[in-house]
């Protein structure tokens, strides 16, 4: 663990994808994540919120080293893991981190039983013998409340519902006892009725095991269930970050404000209220606009916004915003 007690420190992380238009043309870069910094303590949960294409999934997968970082630094438990070459270190990092995906059907090999799916990570990391693994698998299934476990273990993924499969996915992610979990829109493909259940389950496991959780979502309304922290992403940047309650009650960035305003609310009074939706589309990431990337859509845009990239400013304690309005 690093001296300041952080489990994960991400410093100025960039992930650019190479785009080739033709054999001889100069390669272009799609800047999916472009200079992101944050740090998380053990047991903290953060919601990474942003619209499609904002780079939140790329950020999550780059942190897990499923993408090779282009630039920047990832420090995990005091170790620089940015470019892990050592196989042993890599296996350690794989064991310490886990991923929960969006599509529970696609996330399971259809030709393996639930038992085998859960056994795979244990086999890969050579955990226990056959008997011990069986115990661990049954315990993991119990923890995600797929009981009776003997009934679920021999089933194939297609015999389970989406919610049940997502529980299996959670069990698989947690079976190796990771300290960092990235959940990439884990409930967006599920029925509304089981979403809260799954989120509560994840929250419960996270708190019980003191896991650092990065919860990626485009749905601000679910973040309340989940996290202490909220990070708002826009076009490869984190534009605002802070404690969940504070960001939601007191959004600073114009984009955050727009996002919050767009949350549908069952209160009938709201029908009459005017919703301010930012016009236009998010910018292309191959050639993003200079300066603030939200500038073309911002209602409070200034001359400066179009030229210079805004710095990250701590407006109140732990509440950062990347906007010229607060300089």
């Amino acid at each position, binding site marked *: 663990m690093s001296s300041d007690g952080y489990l994960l420190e991400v410093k100025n992380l960039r992930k650019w994808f190479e785009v080739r238009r033709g054999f001889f043309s100069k390669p272009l870069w799609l800047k999916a994540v472009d200079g992101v910094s944050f740090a998380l303590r053990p047991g903290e949960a953060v919601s990474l919120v942003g619209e499609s294409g904002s780079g939140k999934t790329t950020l999550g997968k780059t942190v897990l080293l499923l993408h090779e970082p282009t630039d920047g630094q990832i420090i995990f438990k005091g170790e620089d893991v940015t470019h892990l070459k050592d196989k042993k270190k890599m296996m350690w990092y794989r064991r310490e981190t886990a991923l929960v995906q969006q599509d529970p059907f696609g996330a399971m090999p259809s030709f393996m039983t639930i038992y085998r799916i859960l056994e795979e990570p244990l086999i890969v990391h050579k955990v226990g013998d056959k008997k011990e693994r069986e115990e661990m698998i049954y315990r993991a299934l119990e923890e995600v409340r797929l009981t009776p476990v003997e009934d679920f273990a021999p089933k194939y993924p297609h015999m389970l519902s989406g919610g049940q499969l997502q529980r299996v*996915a959670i069990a698989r992610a947690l079976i190796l006892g990771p300290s960092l979990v990235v959940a990439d829109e884990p409930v967006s493909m599920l029925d509304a009725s089981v979403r809260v259940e799954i989120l509560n389950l994840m929250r419960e496991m996270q708190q019980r095991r003191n896991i650092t959780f990065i919860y990626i979502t485009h749905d601000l309304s679910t973040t309340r269930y989940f996290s202490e922290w909220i990070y708002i992403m826009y076009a490869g940047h984190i534009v605002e970050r802070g404690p969940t309650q504070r960001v939601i009650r007191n959004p600073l960035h114009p984009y955050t404000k727009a996002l919050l305003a767009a949350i549908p609310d069952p209160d009938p009074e709201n029908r009459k209220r005017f919703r301010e939706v930012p016009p236009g589309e998010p910018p292309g990431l191959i050639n993003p606009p200079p300066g603030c990337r939200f500038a073309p859509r911002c209602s409070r845009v200034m001359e400066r916004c179009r030229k210079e990239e805004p710095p990250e400013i701590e407006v109140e304690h732990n509440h950062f915003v990347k906007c010229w309005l607060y300089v």
Partner: protein
Amino acid sequence: MSEVGMEYSLKGILRELLSYKSGIASIVILALLIGLSVYTVVTIPPQKAIAMWRGENNMWIENPRNAAPEWMAFFVHKNLPKTFKVASWEKSFGIVKAEAPLPGTSIKKIHIEMSFNYPYDDFPSEVNIFFRAKFNASKNTPLVKIYWIKPDGTRIPVTEMTMRDPNQILYVSVDQQIYNNLVMWLQKEKGITPYKTVTTQQILFGKITPAMAQGKVDVEKGAYKLVVDATTYNKGDDVDLKLVVYGTVYGIAGTDHLRRPLIIALLWGTPVAIAFGLTASLAISIIQLFIATISGWYAGIIDSIIQRITEIYMIIPFLPFLIMMAAFYKLDIWTILAVVIVLSIFGAGIKSTRALVMQIKEYPYVEAAKAYGASDARIITFYIIPKILPPLVPGLIGSVPGFVFLEAALSLLGLGDPYLPTWGKIINDAYNNGALYKGYYYWILEPSFMLIVTALAFAMLGFALDKIVNPRLREM
């Protein structure tokens, strides 16, 4: 998720297979073929089969040449002659052997009478007499006189000869001397000059009528007798003989131009064809699968190299290349198999499988496996190949007939295995001996039937499997 709901277990597939008519048919035929193969390999070991096919020690000399299978009689509604043998050393009804030494000398008279019944509707294809005598060839050798006695009692002197060799063979039906003797006898005793198409067998087994002069002879059924009067000159000399009357039908598959029973090659062709076809298609499919998976998975430079090699391979003309190799080196069947595999491993199948791999490697479950640290090798073998294997199986089975026919085609061109009897070799022999021109249809039809049945079984199995792993092809 089109894959969801698909579960492949051997038992499940078998159960599903049995719900299709083509599945049942193919399984029944394949079971028969495999049973036949096992039976063949167990009862006729390869070395024995090769020896039999070479006809070592003149082992087929008592078989008719180019005899049709016995069941041909059923189609022509005739009692076609089968081969039968009568030996003077056998103690049985109708065989009489008497010896009378001439007192005061070492000369001995031997009288042999062999009776047999001829009930068939057609003439025999050949008549031979095999002697088994005892004498010293450097001294006076036995003198043998042979008479043929027809059912009506007519006695025809066949030949008179001094023996040269104790195991002498008298090729009665092709011996010019005997033919001349018979014709002379006919002219002298019956005043008939047979037309030149009348054969020795026809004179021996036919009704002697003036129609012979026009070349028309009918079979005379009844009890015949072969009488041999021999004179030996030295003590201890003896004469014995065996008459073989060759039929025009033989066994269940007939014989070829070298008197070999075709059943040997038909039986042996089964394991050879199945082994060749299955091994070729299995080996090629599995090697291609691995190459394609590696190509698709690693992408980059490895992919480029594999793809370029594949493209070069796709240009090489497979069959001409194979024919060239086989013609130059006279390869045996297993070497041909190896050449076929080597020539096919970088086939076009790689392209489609690679495309499939590139699609599957982006699936979330593969990403999940990476996230918990599964190695590339593990992901390829346990995550990607199980996913692409089931759709490849029907094609694999379906490509078996192609290789079975390939082996037959090479044999037909005379480029097959030089020793092992195979179906293709029968067809090759038949072709070289003008089987169709001479009317020996069975010679071509039998191996062709085996080839077609085998091909059909594998093709039907392939189609049925295709319906199972590709539910869209299912009939509603």
